[in-house]
């Protein structure tokens, strides 16, 4: 798998990193949809994302929609400032559930 992936609590955490652009967003998309297909709740860790373009954002939107259909949870965590500015441009910063960290999301369950 192109990006690090781990199980933490009830979630599959996928760690996007580097420049998530048209040259690698198809890989990100496949990995995200694969986890949802497998029935996992998914958190996308984005602290290491130095750049994300509209195709990377589109992969997140697809993941969000696929998770909804299966009533699974899909959220973003530790979003880097450059990724956040693209999410805001896309007016998606209020659409995705965004958490400070995986731990913060897990603590909310307790």
């Amino acid at each position, binding site marked *: 798998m192109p990006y690090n992936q781990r199980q933490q609590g009830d979630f599959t955490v996928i760690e996007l990193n580097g420049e998530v*652009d*048209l040259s690698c967003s198809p890989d990100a998309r496949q990995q995200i949809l694969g986890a949802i297909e497998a029935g996992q709740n998914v958190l996308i860790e984005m602290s290491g994302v130095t750049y994300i*373009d*509209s195709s990377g954002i589109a992969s997140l939107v697809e993941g969000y929609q696929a998770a909804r259909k299966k009533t699974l949870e899909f959220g973003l965590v530790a979003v880097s400032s450059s990724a956040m500015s*693209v999410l805001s441009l*896309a007016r998606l910063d209020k659409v995705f559930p965004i958490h400070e960290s995986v731990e913060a999301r897990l603590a909310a369950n307790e």
Partner: protein
Amino acid sequence: MSAALNQRVVELRFPSQADRLCIVRALVKRVAEFVGCDAALAEQLVIAVNEACMNIIQHAYGDDSPGEIVLEIFNNADTIRFRLQDFAAPVDLNKIKPRELGEVRPGGLGTHFISEIMDECKMGHLEGNRGNYLEMSKRII
């Protein structure tokens, strides 16, 4: 910095391949700083030019008929201007529009980013239907 009217800073030529976008971004960032943009504006310009190049790669050329992309960057005292050219079939200019932002669906963000970031955009066909151009400009002060 020279305040010459519309000097051309540099021109970059590259094939319509997604793997080249990282190089385009690095160049745009450096040139934006060179003409006096602050880091935040440089980041925005990188986003807009990257999306415009993606659109040429995906829509003007497509996977089946790759070709060359020319990026020229100009500046004058208060404005940075980008001119992109491709040599693909002339595109239907009416088809180029962003999605409704109310809708949450995967595509249709690129043109929205571009018009959000830039002050002016102009698109058209090259003479003799040799291809297409997109000009985008942004005040830097």
